[in-house]
């Protein structure tokens, strides 16, 4: 579904991404990990065509994003870190607008709006102005716009950031429900969320992919090596150990 080959991105003197290559198969939910500034958002912005790579290619569903930008965007649903919402619009009118600009056929427009309102549990607030919604609802509206055109690839940049525990569970349930319908690339800092929904983990560090493995295999390998149960959190710390306050984190405090 997604093939990234030798992607590099430079902002002036800063090398944000360096020779990043990976593949994501159809139907996979892939957890995307890395500290702040590791290059996750830059990579997602390149995949969604918002930014162009300094070098390298991305192929989505057989199409090169540099050559077929518009048709590739029809296949992608994207929720940026800050949900892109128009606060003066109601939820329903915003989703209708999203359906129109994402190319949903006019006769299917009402059906798709009703479907995502239901899927994202937004029916209760559909006539409410977005400015008046809680952060959890705003995040769900953001996810609703990302899936309204039934994209093959869903890219979510920290969709649970700033939410309370109940809202996080609701958003994770929503992402899990996408499993059979589309490929998902999910970026988050909360490792336990990846353990709950993802099948594979990509980890970035200083603009490079340092880990690309199935979650099950990864946990199994680490468990064998250390002969006691291992969490993704410990693996994440291992990979970033030289920069972490070692003893403090290593003791699990």
């Amino acid at each position, binding site marked *: 579904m997604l093939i990234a080959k030798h992607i590099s991105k430079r902002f002036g003197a800063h090398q944000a991404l360096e020779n990043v290559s990976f593949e994501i198969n159809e139907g996979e939910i892939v957890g995307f990990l890395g500290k702040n500034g590791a290059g996750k958002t830059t990579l997602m912005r390149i995949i969604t065509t*918002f930014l162009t790579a300094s070098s390298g290619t991305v192929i989505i569903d057989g199409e090169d994003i540099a050559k077929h930008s*518009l048709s590739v965007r029809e296949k992608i649903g994207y929720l940026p870190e800050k949900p892109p919402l128009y606060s*003066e619009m109601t939820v329903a009118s915003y989703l209708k607008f999203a359906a129109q600009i994402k190319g949903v056929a006019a006769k299917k427009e009402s059906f798709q709006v009703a479907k995502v309102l239901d899927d994202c549990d937004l029916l209760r607030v559909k006539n409410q102005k977005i400015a008046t919604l809680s952060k959890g609802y705003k995040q769900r509206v953001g996810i609703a716009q990302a899936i309204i055109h039934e994209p093959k690839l869903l890219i979510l940049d920290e969709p649970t950031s700033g939410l309370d525990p109940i809202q996080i569970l609701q958003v994770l349930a929503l992402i899990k429900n996408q499993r059979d319908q589309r490929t998902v690339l999910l970026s988050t800092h909360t490792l336990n969320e990846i353990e709950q929904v993802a099948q594979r983990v990509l980890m970035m560090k200083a603009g490079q992919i340092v880990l690309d493995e199935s979650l099950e295999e990864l946990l199994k390998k680490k468990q064998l090596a250390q002969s006691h149960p291992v969490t993704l959190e410990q693996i994440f710390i291992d990979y970033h150990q030289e920069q972490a306050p070692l003893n403090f984190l290593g003791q699990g405090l």
Partner: protein
Amino acid sequence: MNKTFAIVKKELHSYFSSPIAYIILIATLSLFNAFFFLIIDQNHEASLRDMFILMEFMFVFLIPLLTMRMFSEEKANGTMEFLLTSPLSLSMIVSGKYLSMLIFYSLLIGMTLIYYFILEYFGNPDAASIFYGYIGIWLEGAFFIAVGLLVSSWTRNQIIAALVSYALIFSLYFSTSFTKYFSGSTESFFMQLSTRTHLENFAVGIITPSNITYYLTGIILCLVLTRLSIDNRLWQ
């Protein structure tokens, strides 16, 4: 086309969902009405010539206030990323934004057509020269909107967008004032650059291909540059 139309609808909804659009319409029309009666009272002429000159002067101040938010707000709110990652071409985004403001502006201009009917009722105005005057003032506003849209694509800060738009539109409007310092082709250049030179012709009922070409070239140039500015993510 449907996607462009969706952007136009969304933009118009956005203007009219806040009180700003109504305040601008009411305040501008109130000022126009007051000046209309003052001009008629002073000139005793069934003509809108001076009214067009006044409207042009007012639009120099008004249009940057209307256009400053067009792209700046999208960037500041993060919705620019939403538009640019949706299956929309840059031309659709730019033309959707531009057309929506043009419709709002046309509505404002359209409301002043009442002046013609008042003149018609009380006197015998030259319908053709008033018609040409309206074409001129509409083209001038369309040009100023294109300038404002271009500037708005450069920054995420609405105040900066308004100030730079003022600088550019003032330069266009007042460039005839610089002609006294120059002679020959430079003088002619500043004269031709000024919007006042071109609107004066329309206001007295003269319509020439060079005047039309001036406005259309300015509009197209600004829209093409806006598209380039967004394509190159100049605000980042």
